[in-house]
């Protein structure tokens, strides 16, 4: 009996095209991802092979989510087939075995679902064979076929996932006998998946998140998160770790569900509910109605009333439907889930400002609204026919067009309902959190300018597809396809214009400072373009509306035409013409007025640049020494005009006969050099050579002028600059000046792309050298174009704004409605500074003759005092421990959230509005990330602005690691070591995550090549650990000694070797090996607490013994790991509480073997024991470092 049903299910499935179509889709996706870098599934970068075992694991995991939707079809079919065809009453009355029927069907569908996923492996195999053969991708990007990974991923992912999905869907289907409910079940599973995703974002919950993820994707992600590229290429997923636990858990769940489902499964058909009639009804008195005289409208087309009636009926039946209510509920749950934890940022919450809520609402609304639009577009178009009322409705004298428009609009109103509901929840959330600046107008503005128009657009597209295709499910498929497939095709064709990507517009980003910003105009035009396109499609659909029984396109068109009036054709004409006109205008603005290059062309330009001018790389260049800026900012026009007088000096030993420039912004920059002629350079080359009439001898100086003139024209395809805006203009000297000579940073850096264009392998940075050469003559920031410069600025802006330039304010005036300022830098500084203009409030404080200032947006005053405190605290520490501060001012200046960083320029620190200004510090009495960022940027006033490394490996350690260390030291003034652990944790994670995504090679700290995860993440952890091991004063001594030798020194610039010289002197002999481990090599500790036993002794004290495993490994640059013998001092400690807030005991123990047993006697019973309790050593897995202590 079983085999009969099983075979039937399986073979029927195999005979149908569905399995093969799905398999083909899956295979195609994988194939695309394997052979090109344009299709991305889960992201593979750099050294990781395209078919590495971990890549297989990740793909299989992610594609399982798609696979689930296919599986729903199989399981739902298996469960409902007999019901659908009304066969069940016959079938179930025969003496078939329940188990045979139930499991036969189930297992048949299960195998079909799993079979689809085999497409993944086929995609991998074919991709790996064809990709390199067709030269789409280099053969070195492919590894051997990972058969074991194929097998294991099939067993670990595909089989259990399909079992779980199947058990749920099969249960739902047999119970509710409704396809909709089955799909909702699938939706529910996806929800579970995304909930686990949001749990994942909090660092401590990783193992929980790994466990609750129904598909096991995150469990696997957690397992491999710290893998280096080498391990990614060599390690196959196994039956271990979080993944195994996760799989066991969910397989058990699946089996339990299936078993319960089987127990409660019954052949008897679901009894229909019989509603009792209310007793009173029959006796209800009623008057007898007379047949009324009615007047039938003589109006030829009572369009509006028809529309209203259609709309009402459509909207009511959708809004009352279970599907809508369930989807709305899901959306609400997701929104609440997302905003519940607040906006976490390094353990702090941001205020729920409206733009943050907008991001959340829009993100969720767009997802659910698209589901709704796709689903109900089919429902609506098919509703009359599905409800068997089409013949009646079609036989009434209405215009088909009216009905069609009513359908599209009722869809949009339904979407609006969801959106507004979410907005309401967002506002309630703000209110509950005490944020009372309700910007209802902003919510509405944002909705109307963006999502609303998109919903309108997609509603018309989907309705159009449904009408034209006239097959509900095929149209569903095409609708979903239209959502992203068009994008994929266009990405492959490398067309960047928003005009050809369905529904695409430039994005805007709302900023409290600058409102909707510079993209708004373009967004509105593109919206109109798409909207009218949709309207035209809808009108065309009207011609093909399947009125009556006509099915073929020809018949429908024949019938449609008959009932079309002249007003139909005139509106079709009107909208088509309007669309053409708008298209023309948009085209003129985005292609003619503001031409742009697509990414491919840009890449080719880079290649040309390198090929043509690389040989000039070491040509002698002059340096800038004095710069006088004359800048006029016109915020209302987003325009900037500048003229810079520059003194340049030949600091080299060779005469210079020509000046070389790299000019990226060719349209806006002009160069004037007296007594010279342009001998090379035309638009598109980016490289300009001016021959000097008279050679510039070593030591000689000359003058030149650079102008920059930016005036935006019309609107662009995408906003190219957010530097010049109405409120919050923020640009730096590099943006308005050309650079001298050949610029290495303009080269293509991705090594696979370089290979594709036949470029030689490229070093990110020159190698660290023991004895200095010409590379030491440049610092890594200005690359030789300047050393320490004098800067003077005359800057003007509109009357309502303040303009800020580096240095002290010399004078200020208002003339002709413009504010004019004159700034001058007090001490020669790095040629790296910003110019800013916005409407600001200013908070000031004087500290030891230094002006502390915060320039902020009016509504963002809440943390301003705290920021001044942070600047002061930093200055106090740095002036005490490092040396004097050389500027007369320290400014924090808020800028719009188009970027979310803070940056240090001499004496000024622009700080994004997204960062510190809106963080809720109300409950924070001590240090916090806002202070930390300020202290970091203040640290740069020393590290980068007083001393800077030569342009070679290791240089960023001297600025970024030191600044981060400085910041930690300021924090440490007010935090105990346990609290510091929370800061260190983020730095450590930044390092570990970063190295697993390394695209070229990892380098030891002392040779860091401007890699953020190393110089910020690892650098700060190591320097922090170092001060814990040798003492804060000793580390500071080394820093101060180094600073004093090189402060504001002309080249040669120092290297990391120069700092190590100072550091070595401070480190006792016993710990010298740490310097090798931590700075010169890549070292990991693997510390584990295996066993804790605790007994109360006779004295009433606690004897605790710990079994510890301590290992040390070194990684090669490619990430290959080698075990080395440990011989290090490691902390062992006890926490008083389970939350690890109070460390009651800490001792540093020398460990020189893998297994160590330690005994302690404590007065009090600790809650937890831990190796390296403060987490200062680099250990990839910290979870196994601590254990709960329990008394025996």
């Amino acid at each position, binding site marked *: 009996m079983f085999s009969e049903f099983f075979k039937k299910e399986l073979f029927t499935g195999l005979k149908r095209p569905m399995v093969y179509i799905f398999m083909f889709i899956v295979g195609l996706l994988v194939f695309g991802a394997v052979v090109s870098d344009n299709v991305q599934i889960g992201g593979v970068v750099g050294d990781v092979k395209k078919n590495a075992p971990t890549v297989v694991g990740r793909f299989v995991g992610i594609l399982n989510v798609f696979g689930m939707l296919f599986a729903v079809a199989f399981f739902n079919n298996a469960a409902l087939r007999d019901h659908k065809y009304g066969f069940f009453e016959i079938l179930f009355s025969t003496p078939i075995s329940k188990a045979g029927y139930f499991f036969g069907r189930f297992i048949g569908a299960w195998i079909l679902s799993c079979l689809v996923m085999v497409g993944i492996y086929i995609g991998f195999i074919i991709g790996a064979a064809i990709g390199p053969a067709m030269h789409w991708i280099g053969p070195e990007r492919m590894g051997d076929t990972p058969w074991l990974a194929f097998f294991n991923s099939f067993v670990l992912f595909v089989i259990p996932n399909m079992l779980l999905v199947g058990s749920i869907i099969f249960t739902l289907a047999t119970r509710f006998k409704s396809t909709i409910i089955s799909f909702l079940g699938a939706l529910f599973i996806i929800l579970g998946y995304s909930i686990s995703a949001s749990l994942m974002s909090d660092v401590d919950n990783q193992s929980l998140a790994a466990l609750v993820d129904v598909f096991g994707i995150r469990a696997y992600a957690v397992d491999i998160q710290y893998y280096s590229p080498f391990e990614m290429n060599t390690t196959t997923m196994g039956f271990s770790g979080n993944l195994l636990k996760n799989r066991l858990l969910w397989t058990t769940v699946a089996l339990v569900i299936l078993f319960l489902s089987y127990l409660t499964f019954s052949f008897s058909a679901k009894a229909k509910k019989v*509603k009792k009639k209310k007793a009173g*009804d*029959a006796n*209800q008195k*009623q008057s*007898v*109605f*007379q*047949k*009324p*005289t*009615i*007047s*039938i*409208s003589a*109006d030829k087309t*009572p369009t509006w*009333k*028809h529309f*209203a*009636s*259609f709309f*009402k*009926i459509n909207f*009511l*039946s959708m809004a*009352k*439907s279970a599907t809508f209510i369930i989807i709305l509920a899901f959306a609400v749950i997701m929104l609440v889930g997302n905003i519940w934890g607040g906006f976490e940022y390094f353990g702090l919450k941001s205020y729920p400002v409206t733009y943050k809520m907008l991001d959340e609402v829009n993100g969720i609304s767009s997802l659910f609204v698209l589901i709704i639009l796709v689903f109900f577009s089919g429902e609506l178009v098919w*509703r009359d026919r599905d*409800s*068997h*009322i089409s*013949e*009646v*409705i*079609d*036989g*009434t*004298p*209405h215009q088909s067009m009216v009905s069609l428009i009513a359908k599209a609009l009722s869809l949009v109103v339904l979407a609006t309902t969801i959106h507004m509901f979410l907005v309401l929840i967002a506002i309630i959330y703000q209110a509950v959190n005490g944020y009372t600046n309700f910007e209802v107008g902003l919510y509405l503005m944002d909705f109307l300018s963006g999502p609303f128009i998109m919903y309108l657009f997609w509603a018309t597209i989907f309705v159009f597809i449904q009408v034209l295709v006239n097959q509900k499910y095929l149209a569903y498929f095409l609708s979903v396809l239209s959502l992203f497939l068009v994008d994929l095709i266009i990405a492959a064709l490398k067309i960047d214009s928003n005009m050809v990507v369905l529904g695409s517009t430039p994005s805007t980003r709302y900023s409290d400072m600058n409102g909707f910003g510079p993209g708004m105009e373009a967004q509105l035009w593109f919206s109109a373009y798409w909207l009218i396109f949709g309207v035209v499609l809808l009108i065309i659909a009207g011609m093909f509306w399947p*009125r*009556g*029984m*006509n099915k*073929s396109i020809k*018949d429908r068109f*024949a*019938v449609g035409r*008959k*009932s079309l009036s002249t007003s139909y054709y005139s509106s079709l004409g009107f909208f088509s013409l309007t669309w053409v006109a708008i298209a023309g205008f948009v085209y003129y603005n985005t292609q003619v007025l503001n031409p742009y290059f697509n990414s491919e062309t840009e890449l080719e330009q880079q290649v040309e640049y390198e090929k043509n001018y690389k040989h000039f790389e070491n040509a002698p260049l002059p340096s800038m020494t004095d710069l006088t800026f004359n800048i006029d900012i016109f915020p209302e026009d987003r325009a900037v005009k500048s003229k810079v007088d520059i003194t340049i000096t030949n600091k080299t030993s060779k005469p210079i006969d020509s000046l070389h420039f790299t000019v990226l912004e060719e349209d806006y920059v002009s160069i004037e050099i007296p007594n010279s002629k342009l001998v090379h350079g035309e638009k598109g080359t980016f490289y300009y050579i001016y021959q000097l009439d008279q050679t510039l001898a070593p030591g000689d100086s000359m003058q030149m002028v650079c102008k920059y003139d930016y005036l935006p024209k019309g609107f662009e395809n995408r906003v190219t600059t957010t530097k010049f805006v109405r409120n919050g203009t923020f640009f730096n000297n590099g943006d308005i000046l050309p650079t001298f000579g050949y610029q290495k940073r303009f080269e293509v850096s991705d090594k696979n792309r370089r290979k594709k264009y036949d470029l030689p392998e490229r070093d990110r940075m020159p190698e660290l050298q023991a004895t200095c050469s010409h590379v030491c003559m440049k610092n890594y920031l200005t690359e030789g174009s300047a050393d320490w410069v004098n800067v003077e600025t005359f800057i003007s802006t509109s009357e309502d704004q303040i303009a800020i330039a580096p240095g002290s304010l010399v004078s200020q005036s208002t003339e002709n409605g413009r504010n004019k300022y004159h700034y001058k830098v007090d001490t020669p500084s790095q040629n790296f500074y910003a110019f800013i203009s916005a409407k600001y409030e200013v908070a000031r404080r004087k500290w030891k003759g230094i002006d502390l200032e915060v320039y902020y947006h009016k509504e963002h005053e809440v943390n301003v005092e705290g920021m001044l405190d942070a600047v002061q605290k930093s200055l106090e520490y740095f002036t005490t421990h490092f040396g004097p501060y050389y500027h007369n001012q320290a400014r924090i200046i808020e800028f719009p959230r188009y970027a979310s960083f803070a940056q240090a320029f001499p004496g000024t620190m622009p700080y994004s509005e997204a960062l510190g200004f809106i963080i809720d510090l109300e409950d924070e009495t001590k240090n916090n990330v806002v202070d930390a960022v300020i202290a970091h940027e203040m640290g740069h006033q020393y590290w980068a602005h007083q001393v800077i490394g030569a342009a070679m490996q290791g240089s960023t350690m001297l600025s970024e690691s030191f600044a981060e260390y400085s910041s930690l030291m300021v924090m440490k003034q007010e935090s105990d070591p346990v609290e510091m652990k929370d800061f260190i944790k983020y730095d450590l994670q930044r390092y570990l995550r970063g190295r697993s995504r390394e695209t070229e090679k990892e380098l030891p700290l002392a040779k860091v090549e401007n890699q953020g995860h190393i110089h910020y993440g690892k650098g700060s952890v190591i320097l922090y650990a170092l001060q814990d091991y040798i003492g804060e004063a000793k580390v500071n001594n080394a820093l101060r000694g180094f600073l004093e030798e090189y402060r504001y020194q002309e080249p040669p610039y120092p290297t990391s070797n120069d700092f190590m010289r100072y550091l070595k002197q401070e480190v006792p002999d016993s710990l010298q090996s740490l310097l090798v481990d931590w700075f010169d090599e890549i070292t990991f500790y693997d510390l584990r607490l295996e066993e804790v036993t605790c007994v109360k002794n006779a004295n009433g004290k606690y004897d605790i013994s710990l079994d510890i495993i301590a290992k040390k490994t070194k990684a090669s640059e490619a990430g290959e790991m080698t075990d080395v013998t440990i011989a290090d001092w490691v902390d062992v400690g006890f926490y008083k509480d389970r939350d690890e807030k109070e460390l009651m005991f800490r001792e540093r123990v020398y460990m020189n073997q893998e297994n160590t047993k330690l005994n302690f006697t404590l007065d009090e019973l600790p809650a937890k024991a831990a190796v390296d309790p403060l987490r200062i050593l680099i250990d990839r897995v910290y979870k196994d470092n601590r254990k709960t202590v329990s008394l025996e």
Partner: protein
Amino acid sequence: MSQLKITNLNKTYPNGTKALVDVNLELSKGMFGLLGPNGAGKSSLMRTLATLQEADSGTATLGDIDMLGDPQSVRKILGYLPQEFGVYPRITAAQLLDHVATLKGILNKKERNELVDYLLQKVNLYNERNKSVKGFSGGMKQRVGIAQALIGNPQLIIVDEPTAGLDPGERNRFHNLLAEVGEEVIVILSTHIVDDVRELCTDMAIMNFGRIVYNGQPADALSALNGKIWRKVIERSEKENYQNNYNVISDKMVAGRPQIHVLSDADPGNGFEEVPPNLEDVFFVRCQGG
């Protein structure tokens, strides 16, 4: 009211089925019955007249209106109850009728309400007017369908199998209702229930295989068969024998035994007795010919 004239109407479906073959009919005010077995082409004809389906060739005019070329004009004076009448989920009877009334051009809200109330009462659904139609029984749904077909003073009412699923009481009420409106307008009643036609229609046609096999008054049809219908109650085992030897036009069970009718100009003897022809006999005789 003007005449409905159908000339040489043809329709062949893409799968080759000939739904309408040279259909010619003339109808005037009153009830017109359209009889025929399942699949005879009745619904195709009705749908074509109701502007829901294109004909391949032929014409149909209603007074001055070219029914096939100007569907909008037909729709303004049409009341149509299709064979399969369903309803929207989650919409009440009153809402549904209100919607149809609006579409038929009754734009005055008050008039519409009165009309909806009136019709609901007529079809005995006034008490259920605010309930979702989806939960109605088949008969109740059919009554809603009848109500909507009567909205807006239609000049041409087409009802396709209207009494299917109605209990005898409901059926009578429906017949009365139809007869009431049928005095003034053209009513086309398609059915395979012979009694419906007998009770209501002054004119009728019988269709089979897409053709009109009879067109005329029921009385004429009956008189044509006078003296030609013979009846006999037989044993079940004899059925085949009789079918081979006589022109058996129908057999049905009466009190558990087969009763056959045969067509014969003369007395077939052998225990047959002559019976007055009824419409069912007409139906079977006419359909046999096809």
